[in-house]
């Protein structure tokens, strides 16, 4: 294999890696003066990478770098989404960074490296590539969480994320070495062909633990509320979207391909993780007052729903994972981004009561946010409902009625806090005026709201077809 052909397969990731290194040089010369320019350039680079990923999407399966790296429509779908979301999250962050005096060039660089890490881990065809990708994503994320250096909470978030993340990486590595020991290789295809043995199962479970941590599924979710609370708002909007869909799809991909033949061994593990995530996510947020913590629990709960589809197995669940996560992150980007971008006298709001009377202060924005909240909550006619529908169908096809019922129950419970947000926005008397919303934020909120309802409500078949194609390949 020659290098050029390999690079062509890995074009989106290679583009980002090249861009990231060039930008690093540029930033070393220009310093913080060019941070705005760099942010715009980076958004475009990420968008371009997303476009390349989507161009590759219909072409199907390809391997590169001696089998270390492989793209399939399944991962390309998620990769394109990850890059596009990273581009949008970066695009939205401008106003906040300026207001919080955080306009530093490292921000764009960290986002681009994190996104690239996510892309690499998606395309991994070997446990080692997987680990390298995850670590690139994680190390960038730790720094991003602590990006607000002068804030105690942000530093705490970064440190906490780092310590726990390192532990999870350790679990993942330990699991990988066990799998290597018992399967004789770190290559996905070889592992898939290996005989089932106790050692392999141990390795498998440890790998699940490591990946579940990255996806913030219970019981490995404990870091999520703290990190979301401490990290700067645009970073949270990024964490909750781009790496999230990548992490869940990687988990699905590793289960479906690497451990596909051992489905019976991991199905119940994933199902229990799913049930725990949904319940903890639903009940945990009820008593919270911090918006960021509520959103953190909401994302834990939603990951649980996606895990139902993974537990259902590759035949029933693969396309449901993609549909669910796509619809979820579209709504989440607008919802997290919109809510977290609200500032009062330059300070980002964080208590639910700060949202009071938003419909009087910002009526258009409120309308968009309400649509998005109902989409995340999965109430029709908002499109998030179709994600839930797909997941429920996958669960029922796999004979997991109990899991589907847990999902139904927890979505009723979680409505308790979604409605609380709507309540504060629409029904409480207005508080003090909020700062002007940046164009980038309101544009993203409106765009994702329009996609969530009514565009995809009517055109849902397109997404279903794309997801079905992705999971057939």
């Amino acid at each position, binding site marked *: 294999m020659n290098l050029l052909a390999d690079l062509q397969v890995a074009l989106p990731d290679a583009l980002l890696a090249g861009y990231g290194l060039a930008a690093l040089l540029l930033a070393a010369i220009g310093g913080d003066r060019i941070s705005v320019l760099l942010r715009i350039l980076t958004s475009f680079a990420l968008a371009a990478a997303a476009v390349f990923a989507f161009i590759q999407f219909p072409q199907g399966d390809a391997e590169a770098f001696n089998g270390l790296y492989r793209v399939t429509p399944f991962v390309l779908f998620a990769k394109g989404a990850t890059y596009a979301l990273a581009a949008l999250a970066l695009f939205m962050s401008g106003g906040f960074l300026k207001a919080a005096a955080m306009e530093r060039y490292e921000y764009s660089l960290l986002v681009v490296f994190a996104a690239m890490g996510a892309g690499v881990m998606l395309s991994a065809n070997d446990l080692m590539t997987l680990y390298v990708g995850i670590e690139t994503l994680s190390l960038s994320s730790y720094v991003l969480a602590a990006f607000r250096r002068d804030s105690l909470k942000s530093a705490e978030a970064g440190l906490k994320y780092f310590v726990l993340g390192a532990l999870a990486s350790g679990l993942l590595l330990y699991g990988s070495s066990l799998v290597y020991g018992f399967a004789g290789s770190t290559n996905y295809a070889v592992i898939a062909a290996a005989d089932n043995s106790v050692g392999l199962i141990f390795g498998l479970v440890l790998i699940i633990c490591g990946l579940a941590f990255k996806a913030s599924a219970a019981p490995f979710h404990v870091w999520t509320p703290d990190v979301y609370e401490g990290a700067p708002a645009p970073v949270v909007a990024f964490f909750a979207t781009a790496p999230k869909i990548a992490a869940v799809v990687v988990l699905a991909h590793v289960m479906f391909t690497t451990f596909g033949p051992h489905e019976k061994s991991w199905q119940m593990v994933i199902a229990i993780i799913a049930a725990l995530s949904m319940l903890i996510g639903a009940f945990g947020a009820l008593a919270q007052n911090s918006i960021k913590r509520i959103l953190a629990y909401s994302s834990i709960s939603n990951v649980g729903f996606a895990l139902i589809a993974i537990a259902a197995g590759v035949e029933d669940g693969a396309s449901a994972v993609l549909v669910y996560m796509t619809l979820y992150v579209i709504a989440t980007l607008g919802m997290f981004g919109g809510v977290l971008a609200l500032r009062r006298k330059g300070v980002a709001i964080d208590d639910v009561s700060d949202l009071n009377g938003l419909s009087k202060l910002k009526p258009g924005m409120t309308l968009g946010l309400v649509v998005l909240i109902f989409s995340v909550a999965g*109430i029709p006619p908002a499109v998030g409902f179709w994600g839930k*529908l797909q997941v429920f*169908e996958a669960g*029922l096809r796999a004979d997991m009625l109990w899991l*589907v019922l847990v999902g139904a129950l927890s*979505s*009723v419970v979680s*409505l308790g806090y979604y*409605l609380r947000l709507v309540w504060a926005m629409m*029904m409480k008397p207005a508080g003090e005026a909020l700062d002007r919303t940046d164009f980038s934020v309101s544009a993203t909120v409106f765009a994702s709201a329009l996609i969530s309802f009514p565009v995809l409500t009517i055109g849902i078949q397109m997404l279903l077809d794309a997801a079905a194609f992705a999971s057939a390949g």
Partner: protein
Amino acid sequence: MFDLPILSIVTFIPLIGALLILGFRVVAGPSFAAGASKGIALIMSLAAFAASIYALMQFNPNAIGYQLVESIPWFGGSAYKLGVDGMSLALIILTTALTPLCVLQSMRSIADRLADYMVAFLILETLMIGVFCALDLMLFYVFFEGGLIPMFLLIGIWGGKNRLYAAFKFFLYTLLGSLLLLVALVYMYMVTGTTDIEALQRYPFAPQVQTWLWLAFFASFSVKLPMWPVHTWLPDAHVEAPTAGSVVLAAVLLKMGGYGFLRFSLPMFPDASLLFQPLMFALSVIAIVYTSLVAFRQTDIKKLVAYSSVAHMGFVTLGIFSFNEAGIQGAVFQMISHGIISGALFFCVGVIYDRMHTREIAFYGGLVHRMPVYAALFMLFSMANVGLPGTSGFVGEILTMVGGFQASTWAAAGAALGVILSAVYMLTLYRRVVFGEITNEKLSDIKDVNATEFFVLGLLAVMALVFGVFPSLVFDLTKGSSDAILQMIGK
């Protein structure tokens, strides 16, 4: 033959009105939009009514099966498929006829954020009509559950003091039920590969499966109807909702439960329906007797009317599950009739609430001296609610009881007890609010109904009387659909 997609037009005219108001709100600001919203809401709701009457003229009551069908593939095995039979058309017209009246009433009584209110109300109308038009289970579910959002906002924003509790309870109670329906829906789609209602009605589900599916549908519809013992959200929601919200809640939203039983539970799961007949009879009779007694003890007028709604819905389920012509025809008629009467009663409560801002029964008394016209109209609706012959309430109750009697003597006997009890609480209410001397000084200069209120209540009074004297107006329309249901359950 029918080129015009008339059902889509009926369904989406209100939505267009809502979008117009939103447009005005964005372009011209909230105060202008508030003024414009009155006109737009009224015109659009009247247009929807006119369109539904046009649909009625196109409809052939003697033909078999669904009519005015339109179908566009949507996704998977689901389609955007609309169509009506006599039963659903009657409920659609009930909806479109009541909405302009609600709009008229709300124009005067809603002071705050009128434009937003009209938007929520028109969206709610679209969703309500959609529920009755949908011939695809998925589409039905979307309309059915989507209706929770505007109703939540109506109660939550424009409701009374305790609206937080009521709005949340309404939403969560109903959602829990409908999610079980969703699970059943997904299962049925998995087995049959389609969510087309006509196809599902023909599909022979195994008896064992039917039982579980029936229970899942029951969870949703019994909450919506509501049946004892899951009725407790209703009094709270009614008391806190604004007047027009209460009216549509009682007149239309509750009917979705009964409609659901008739459209889905009976035709799709006939064996299970027969199996659960005793359960349904027991719950119906308990609802009729128990909630009538509870109604008697209420101190709040709206709460009393709300409990009386639960009791009257007991007649509906009694009729539906008697599986005979009289019962089912009576149940459909009772739904229409209750829509008119309970709607009118909530309007009546709204009239005095707008003036005095309290619904305490004890606050009132002697209204007949100051409000003779109001007293006469309120009298008529109270009597209709009791089921006095000559009013529509009588026809529905007597037919459901005749139907029930053929199926189970005991159930009918229990229900008959409810007729007496309804007279007890309604007449007591009427005496304490309207008769006697005026003891409360604040009532001394209360004004009688104004022109709008007279128009709204008068129209409803005419409807209650016309349907009471000529019930065949409804029966001719709904006969085909009730025959079809009976045929599908093999009776």
